[in-house]
C-alpha cells in the first residue's frame, strides 16, 4: 500500500496509532508549521512518539515495501512545513539515521520540492540498505530518474533481493535496455546453476531481447545437467517457452 495523499496518510495514522501518538503528531505538525527549524529535533523522535507498526495490519514488518507509522508521521511533519520542506530535507537526510532517511525519501512525492531531491534519491540507491533502496524508488524517483539510472536501480533491487513488482509506475517506465539487463541477469543466474526470481519475466517479456533469450534457451541443452535444470526451473515461470513452442 502506497499512501498517495495527505488525507490518506492521516486516516491511516488515525487507524493505527495510539491516542497519545496522534495528539503528539497533530501538535508537532502545528509547531513545525509555525517554526520549520523545530523539525530537526522532532524528526528523530517520530518512531518513539507515534510508533513503528506497519500501516497495513497484514503487512510483514520486515518487508521494506511496507509503509510504517513512523514513515507516515515523518511525511506528515514535512508536509506541515509546506514551502520550507525543500530547505530542511537536505540536512534531515544528511544527519538522519536509516529510518529518518527513509522518512524523507517516502515523503518526496507529497512535497513541493520539484527535482531538487533527485540527488538524495540517487544517494540512497547507491547504498546497500534495502530499506533505503526501496524508500528511494517511490513514485518521485520513478517519474524523475532517467532510463539508464532507473534500469540500474531495478537491476540492483533484483540483485539484492528486493521485490520489484510493488514498485509503483514501473510498468510504464520499462525500456528495452532494462529488459535486456534483466535477461542477461537471468542467464547469469542459470549459468551459475541458481534460481531466477519469477518477477523478472514480466519486464523481460515486455521487450524480449532476441539474442539474450536465445542464450537462455541454449542453456536447456547445456552439457552440465545442473545448468539444464536451472534453465528449466527458471523458464517454467515465464511465458517465453510456451510462446516459442507455439511458434514452432
Amino acid at each position, binding site marked *: 500500500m502506497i499512501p498517495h495523499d495527505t488525507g490518506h496518510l492521516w486516516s491511516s495514522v488515525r*487507524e*493505527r*496509532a*495510539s*491516542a497519545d*501518538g496522534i495528539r503528539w503528531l497533530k501538535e508537532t505538525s502545528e509547531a513545525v508549521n509555525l517554526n520549520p527549524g523545530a523539525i*530537526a*529535533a522532532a524528526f*528523530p*523522535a517520530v*518512531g*518513539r512518539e507515534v*510508533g*513503528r*507498526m506497519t500501516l497495513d*495490519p497484514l503487512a510483514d*514488518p520486515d518487508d521494506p515495501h511496507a509503509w510504517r507509522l513512523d514513515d507516515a508521521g515523518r511525511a506528515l511533519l514535512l508536509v506541515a512545513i509546506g514551502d520550507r520542506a525543500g530547505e530542511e530535507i537536505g540536512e534531515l537526510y*544528511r*544527519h*538522519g*539515521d*536509516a*529510518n*529518518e*532517511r527513509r522518512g524523507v525519501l517516502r515523503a518526496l512525492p507529497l512535497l513541493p520540492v520539484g527535482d531538487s531531491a533527485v540527488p538524495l534519491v540517487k544517494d540512497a540507491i547507491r*547504498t*546497500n*540498505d*534495502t*530499506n*533505503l533502496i526501496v524508500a528511494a524508488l517511490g513514485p518521485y524517483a520513478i517519474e524523475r530518474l532517467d532510463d539508464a539510472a532507473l534500469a540500474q536501480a531495478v537491476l540492483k533491487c533484483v540483485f539484492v533481493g528486493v521485490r520489484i513488482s510493488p514498485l509503483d509506475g514501473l510498468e510504464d517506465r520499462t525500456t528495452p535496455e532494462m529488459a535486456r539487463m534483466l535477461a542477461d541477469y537471468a542467464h547469469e543466474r542459470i549459468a551459475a546453476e541458481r534460481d531466477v526470481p519469477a518477477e523478472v519475466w514480466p519486464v523481460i517479456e515486455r521487450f524480449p531481447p532476441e539474442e539474450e533469450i536465445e542464450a537462455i534457451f541454449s542453456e536447456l541443452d547445456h552439457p552440465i545437467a545442473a545448468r539444464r535444470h536451472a534453465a528449466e526451473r527458471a523458464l517454467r515461470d515465464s511465458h517465453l517457452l510456451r510462446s516459442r513452442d507455439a511458434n514452432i
Partner: protein
Amino acid sequence: MRIFDPHVHMTSRTTDDYEAMAASGVRAIVEPAFWLGQPRTSVDSFVDYFNGLLGWERFRASQFGISHHCAIGLNPKEANDDRLREEVLAILPRYLAKDGVVAVGEIGFDSMTAGEEAALEAQLALALEHDLPVLVHTPHRDKLAGTRRTLEIVADSGVPPELVVVDHNNELTVAEVVESGCWAGFTIYPFTKMDEHRFVRVAEEFGTERILVNSAADWGISDPLKVSKTANAMLDAGFSDDEIDRVVWRNPVEFFGHSGRLMLDEPDADRAATFEGNSVLRGERPAG
C-alpha cells in the same frame, strides 16, 4: 542462552563475526563510538561515522537477527585535537536525540590531559540534558589514578551514578567503582585487560549486581565471543543460570533501558513492562 554484549565495535568486524555471535546467543549489542586506530582530521568524518553506526551497521546486524544500538560521543584520544573537539561536541546534540542511541559514549580519559577532561565534562552535561546513560572508558595506562579522577568528575557532574558504567575494570579498580554506585564494566580480552577466569573470581567476590561484561571487540586483537565464553566460565565455576542471565542479559537491559530507547526484537514481557518507553520493533502493542 540470550546474550547482550554492551560494548562491541562491530564496524571493525566481519559478517562471519555476526554469524558466530548470533550462534553463541547474542541477540542485542551496543556499539559505542570510538576512534578508528587512525586519527580523523575533520568533523565530517565523524558525521559519516555516526551515520554509519545508525544506518549501515544497524542494517548489517539485523541481517543476523541482532538488535544493534549505539552510544554516541567523542572519544578521549581525539578529544585532544582542540579544533575537532569543539566541532564534534557541537554536532552531538543532533545525534543524541536519535532512536537506538542508548548512551553517551565512550568518553573518559586516555592520557589525562586538559582536553580530555574538558570533553568528558561537556559530554556528562549532555547526558544530563538528554537523560541518557553514560559509558565511560578508563585508561590503559595509569588505570587506578585515571579511574579515581573519572569517579570524581562523574560525582561532580550531577549525573546519577546508576546511569554511569565505568568500563575496562580490573582487580585493582573494581572496589572503588562499585563503592561509588556506578556500574562496573569488564572487558574480556584474549591477552590484556581481563580474562574470563579472572572475571569469575571478581564476580565471586563482588557479586553480579551492577556488573556488565563485554567483548569490546574492535580492530585489535579481541574476540567477539568473549561474553559467551565468560558465561561458560561462570557456569563451570558454579554460578546458576539465573545469575548468568542477569550478567549477560538483564543487567545491560536494565542499564541501557534507562534511555527508553532499546529496540529489542524478542522482548521478555516482564522487562518490557519494567522499562516502559523502550520500543519493541516486532511486538509493538497495537493501538486502542
